[in-house]
């Protein structure tokens, strides 16, 4: 549609822009191959929600196996078909489900679904831009992601099952189809899908960073940016630096699998037969993988930081506590995230001295994280708190981030990790701190920005039922996992009843599975609320939360170009809530100081 040659002189741009506004778009251009950042954001959101249900459903299936190891699952035959053998879940399929659950949740939901949705939606709206720097690249990013989703989804229905080597796809297991069925076609499709996914993330990330740096409206200096934009900015930088490394790692794995190279393979005997591969190193893969893998967890959690900061400040009717400290701590976390990857590899036989270096660096992350938690709590402290559903999820996020973060300090110790490595303690830790917490951040964002996305409000009553059921069941699922983890209960085991040590945890596992099922069912309340509210929700006003940021100065349903007239100019930071002397408890960013003389601070007098 509106694509032009880059070499066209700026003047021509204007002529085209005029033309563009009068040009009626057909259905395909408007909803499918749209270059409008708001539509692309919704596309990512819908795709993310779809994937979240697929990923969640897989987790329920393997929780059934863990909770009732002796039961027969003939009733699952209609869904799983051949994967149920004589009423028993196929062990290799169990591994494939765990793998797909991890891959789907980490990449497709919490990376693409979370930053894809909110970076696309909020960056142009909050910085005061008409759209992303390149709408075409943005559209391409979604459709490459869509293609990658299709490949990954198709792999679920392969005869030999999807990839089964864990979401970390460590070779040699993932490289040798002889070792496990899931390392056959399923793994090939996993790699193709992830390669496409990385391309999509890079296209998106380049766009996000360019937009934030280049297209801010007049007056919007970097220190007047809402924390959401800062968080999404760091997320994009992390992605840009770490995803290419995963691409390299995956490329070498592809060569090992399909072209007979030996980057990761060496001296392997399988079924009594020696493989010809020599000279490879499986540890090399782990280094490359975790060089992405660790920043990846911050790619997941940083957008949630941003969304939560914004929602907490707005709903506490107080300026965010320590705005610059929040940015500083995000910089700290972003930098540290690149130098801690080997804490995932403490038990690979690495040099103990190196282990203590990585342990030291890992434990430092507690400092910026604690700064953030402190600031959120200080923002809430004596605030005029409105418990909207978005706010409930924001507070829930802080709670989960604290509980999950504390166990991070334990796991970061290389000595303690010897006992806890690959146990349910790790599972509990990362599900609380990055899994559930990032999900809470996402829910918080969806509930809070739903009025801007769809022009209607979500139902608050259903929202709070959804929140409480989810919040309680998350704790009921993951708290007990710490206990069985400390007892040494290993992850990824299909069946543990054969071990005397772990038999005593049958009741605990049943309990966890029940809580997981309740938690998963609660998500259908959200789904209903979400779909119902899109069509039948209460109509939203322009600024339903009385928030300061620029997106709320657009019409209820912003059209192409976001602001019908001129883009507003920004005069102040986004957190002027409950400013003493002001007539209302919020002053939007586009209100000049000359209009708020009663509330201006002495330092702001010059700006009047």
């Amino acid at each position: 549609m509106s694509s032009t040659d880059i070499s066209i002189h700026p003047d021509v741009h204007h002529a085209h822009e005029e033309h563009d506004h009068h040009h009626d778009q057909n259905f395909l251009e408007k909803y499918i191959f749209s270059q409008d950042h708001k539509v692309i954001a919704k596309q990512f959101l819908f795709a993310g929600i779809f994937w979240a249900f697929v990923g969640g459903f897989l987790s329920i299936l393997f929780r059934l196996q863990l909770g009732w190891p002796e039961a027969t699952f003939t009733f699952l035959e209609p869904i799983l078909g051949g994967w149920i053998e004589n009423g028993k879940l196929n062990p290799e399929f169990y591994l494939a489900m765990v793998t797909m659950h991890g891959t789907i949740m980490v990449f497709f939901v919490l990376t693409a679904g979370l930053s894809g949705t909110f970076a696309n939606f909020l960056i142009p709206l909050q910085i005061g831009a008409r759209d992303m720097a390149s709408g075409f690249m943005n559209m391409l990013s979604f459709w490459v992601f869509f293609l990658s989703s299709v490949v990954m989804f198709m792999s679920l229905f392969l005869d030999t099952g999807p990839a089964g080597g864990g979401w970390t796809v460590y070779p040699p297991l993932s490289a040798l189809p002889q070792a496990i069925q899931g390392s056959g076609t399923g793994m090939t499709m996993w790699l193709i899908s992830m390669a496409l996914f990385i391309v999509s993330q890079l296209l998106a990330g380049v766009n996000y960073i360019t937009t934030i740096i280049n297209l801010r409206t007049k007056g919007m200096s970097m220190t007047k940016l809402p924390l959401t934009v800062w968080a999404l900015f760091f997320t994009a930088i992390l992605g840009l630096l770490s995803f290419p490394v995963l691409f390299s790692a995956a490329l070498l794995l592809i060569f090992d699998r399909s072209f007979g190279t030996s980057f990761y393979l060496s001296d392997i005997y399988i079924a009594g037969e020696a493989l010809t591969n020599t000279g490879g190193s499986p540890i090399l893969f782990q280094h490359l993988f975790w060089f992405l893998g660790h920043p990846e967890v911050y790619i997941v959690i940083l957008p949630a930081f941003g969304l939560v900061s914004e929602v907490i400040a707005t709903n506490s009717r107080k300026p965010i506590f320590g705005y610059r400290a929040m940015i500083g701590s995000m910089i700290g976390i972003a930098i540290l995230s690149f130098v801690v990857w080997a804490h995932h590899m403490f038990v690979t036989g690495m040099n103990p001295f190196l282990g203590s270096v990585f342990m030291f660096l890992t434990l430092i992350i507690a400092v910026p994280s604690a700064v953030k938690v402190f600031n959120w709590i200080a923002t809430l402290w004596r605030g005029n708190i409105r418990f909207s559903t978005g706010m409930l999820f924001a507070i829930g996020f802080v709670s989960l981030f604290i509980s999950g973060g504390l166990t991070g300090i334990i796991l970061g110790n290389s000595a303690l990790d010897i006992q806890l490595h690959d146990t349910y303690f790790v599972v509990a830790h990362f599900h609380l701190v990055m899994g559930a917490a990032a999900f809470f951040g996402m829910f918080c964002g969806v509930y809070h920005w739903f009025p801007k996305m769809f022009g209607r409000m979500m139902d608050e009553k259903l929202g709070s039922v959804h929140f409480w059921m989810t919040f309680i069941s998350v704790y009921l699922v993951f708290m007990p996992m710490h206990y069985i983890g400390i007892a040494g209960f290993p992850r990824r085991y299909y069946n543990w009843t054969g071990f005397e040590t772990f038999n005593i945890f049958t009741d605990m596992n049943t309990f966890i599975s029940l809580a997981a099922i309740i938690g998963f069912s609660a998500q259908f309340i959200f789904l209903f609320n979400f779909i119902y509210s899109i069509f039948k929700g209460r109509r939203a006003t322009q600024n339903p939360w009385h928030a300061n940021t620029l997106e709320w100065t657009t019409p209820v349903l912003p059209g192409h170009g976001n602001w019908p007239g001129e883009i507003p100019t920004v005069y102040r930071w986004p957190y002027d809530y409950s400013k003493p002397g002001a007539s209302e408890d919020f002053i939007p960013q586009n209100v000049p100081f000359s209009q708020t003389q009663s509330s201006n601070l002495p330092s702001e007098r010059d700006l009047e």
Partner: protein
Amino acid sequence: MIMVDNRIESNPTSSGVHPLKFSLWLIIISIIMMFAAFTSAYIVRREEGNWLEFELPTILLINTVIIVLSSVTMQWAYVSAKKDNLSSIKLGLILTSVLGAAFLIGQWNGWAELVQNNIYFGGSTSNPSGSFLYVLTGVHGFHLITGLVFVLITLVSSLKYKVHSKNLLRIQLCTVYWHFLGGLWLYLYIFLRINH
């Protein structure tokens, strides 16, 4: 990169840099990260032993000279564009693409030389040291092909008189990318020389 949405405001951006130029630098950063991963993997892997040492193909040195020359011609085309010297833009771009193609053919011959010396990419007799060389040159070659396509696009638009001092963006982007690819190869060549 060729298509751009016309909603980009034509007034100066908040950073003073054209968004596309900025994007190109970000893309370059991500390519650098990819090669940083490969070369650090190379070093880590080499330290572990069981590493076959062999002679680098001699043609790589000639290729290095060719790609440095192509950077010179590219720069010449860019400078000519600034001076509105239309015929030298075309000549510069044609020379650049010929030299770029010559580099690719040279790399291909380098691979042939490796195969002659029994250094294979995969298979039972291959060693990661050889495979790494193929990966480094191959992935660089792939990016060089994208660069070559970009040069050709610029050449076509210069034939349509669309490249001149008031319309520098495309050739600017092209020059930056081409210099980057040349620099990347220099880095890889020096890296391979040192670690061989």
